[in-house]
């Protein structure tokens, strides 16, 4: 039986095995200036592209494991080029740009992978909020955590969803506990 090339843009296993040895970062093709988000164009009909779909327009790949989609992007970069000429598209190995965007705290997420139930994910959500793609599960309405400070007579509850950054969180905590004198 001939191998069916999945519409998700997966390569054949043989190609994947080849690519594992490659330093993909050095030959990474980026559309547009470093730090800009390139629009993802798809020529496949209809259905979701699964794994490669999840990559948020940020083409910075970790270079291990995601061989199939790496290859799809590398080989078929034209699939994703905007119609007009992109003069920033440099086929030569690019010098690694210093990232003006903060390095993602988490990898781009595939829906339903790793296979962890929502209840568990929500319970673990006291970790820094991850970047989700739009159709990943929605954030829980409230992300209450109880905060305890040494010396404070009682705990405080706070909704992590209200704070966009560590700085906000930390100043809110300060205010919350400032009334307790040690």
């Amino acid at each position, binding site marked *: *039986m*001939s*191998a*069916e*090339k*999945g*519409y*998700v843009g*997966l390569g*054949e*296993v043989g190609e*994947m*095995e080849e690519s*594992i*040895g490659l330093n993909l970062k050095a030959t990474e093709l980026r559309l547009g200036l470093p730090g800009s988000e390139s629009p993802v164009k798809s020529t496949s*009909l*209809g*259905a*979701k592209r*699964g*794994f490669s779909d999840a990559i948020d327009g940020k083409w910075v790949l*970790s270079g*291990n*494991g*995601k*061989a*199939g989609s790496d290859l799809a992007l590398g080989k078929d970069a034209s699939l994703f080029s905007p119609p007009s000429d992109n003069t920033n598209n440099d086929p030569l190995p690019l010098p690694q740009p210093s990232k003006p965007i903060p390095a*993602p*705290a*988490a*990898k781009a*997420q*595939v*829906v*339903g*992978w*790793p*296979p*962890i*139930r*929502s*209840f*568990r994910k929500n*319970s*673990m959500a*006291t*970790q820094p909020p*991850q970047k989700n793609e739009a159709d*990943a*599960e929605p954030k829980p309405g*409230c992300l*209450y*955590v*109880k905060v*305890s400070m*040494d010396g*404070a*007579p*009682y*705990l405080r509850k706070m909704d992590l969803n209200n704070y966009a950054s560590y700085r906000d969180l930390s100043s809110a905590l300060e205010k919350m506990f400032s009334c307790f004198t040690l």
Partner: protein
Amino acid sequence: MKKAAYSFPEEVLEHVFSFIVSDKDRSSISLVCKSWYEIERWCRRKVFVGNCYAVSPPILIKRFPELRSVTLKGKPHFADFNLVPEGWGGFACPWIRAMAGAYPWLEEIRLKRMVVSDESLEIIAKSFRNFKVLVLSSCEGFTTEGLAAIAANCRNLRELDLRESEVEDLSGRWLSDFPDSYTSLESLNISCLGNEVNLLALERLVSRCPNLKTLRLNRAVPLDRLPNLLRGAPQLAELGTGAYTSEMRPDVFSNLAEAFAGCKQLKTLSGFWDVLPSYLPAVYPICSQLISLNLSYATVQSPDLIKLVSLCEKLQKLWVLDYIEDDGLEVLAASCKDLRELRVFPSDPFGLEPNVALTEQGLVSVSEGCPKLQSVLYFCRQMSNAALNTIARNRPNLTRFRLCIIEPRSPDYLTLQPLDDGFGAIVEHCKDLRRLSLSGLLTDRVFEYIGTYGKKLEMLSVAFAGDSDLGLHHVLSGCDNLRKLEIRDCPFGDKALLANAAKLETMRSLWMSSCSVSFGACKVLGQKMPRLNVEVMDESGPPDSRPESSPVEKLYVYRTVAGPRLDMPGFVWTMDDDSALRIS
């Protein structure tokens, strides 16, 4: 006198049948002859429906008029991971309504992955006078108002278990709706509730129910209220704590330790959200009696985990986060020789880099040290064929093996080869393997192994694996006992599916998403197999608006005697005999 030798009074047969409880055996009895079928169906008290769409309420009621216990499952397993869109189905209401009319003496309802409304709960509360057991596992669609109806009306309720359901938590007041005269509670699991319940009502309820054996609290129950609850139920066998943290005070600690020590029958512990490590020693006195420990929400580091686990010499079941690390698993292997089940969950599944020192070695240690280990669920970031081989040879008694290497398509990290041989060793050596989940880099060869050796395999989960239809063909043609097959993101397509169409009637269900099955093939399958429901899911629009060769987004095929279902949302189409598509 010859006649007497041939005929057995029905009552005697009925009495004999009452000792046969397994569904399979009951089914066999009913096939012996017409009169046995009749007798059996009148005295069947318990029924399990693995797929609520495989049969309909009228069909069930017509065949089994005197049920006392019904279990129904709705959505496919991958719904747990958000692969099944909202509104897909699995509605409990039609079942509950029908049963309310047909089974006034119904005692037990167990639902899994179904949509349950408050209205349904109200019907349950008012229709069954002797209602005893309500288990809602991974269900959704109801609020605490529905629970209030149950609490207020079910005088004989023994068990209320909401495990992992999504409940709209409007108020904790519902618990107070159990009347003061109500004392028959034996098992309560509210661990999924988001908000605080009325703690005073909870304490009173717990202390007035002398047969309470299982109490699983939710995160919102503060630790300092736990001692009181425990003192009210010293006969508890299973406890799920709430948040396991409080400001560190010696009197709170000693109170807690004393309360735990008073529970001489406590065998199962869970909960442990937000653990403050200094409070863990409060459970040390009872560790030696524990057989089941669920620390999978306990974000504590290895040393604290190791200490705790090393004291649980009778442990049979451990669920834990990967904070336990390889070192901790080595201690587990040395201390807990009775271990039957291990689940290790990832603490940082979406992180780019490993945050803990947990590798394949941990699992190898446990496979070496724990001779009774049967069931494994393991999340990790690297695996090798050698390790899998060792595990397989160490533990041929494995019955459930679910491995999740977090990065899809990860090869053997030592050789960079696919993990075909490793998983092949698992299926070859573990002859009683019933459930298997694959991950990592896998070619069609692993499926050849599975088809060849996986003769007892009942459930297989596959993701990001395989090269071609041959892979799927191996599984469908080789696994004689396969009941459930779920596949995502694999290059499996039409040929294997159509060539093995008849196999699908011997299985409960097949799920395929982000694969290469064409719309045309789905239509053909639906036409060829009238006793299968072939459901195509596509959120981007009707599949017939695209060429027939276009792959479908999601495919769910299941056998049924009830025909195509009528409650499908707009993004689901059934491919049936006349291939008519419902216009949404």
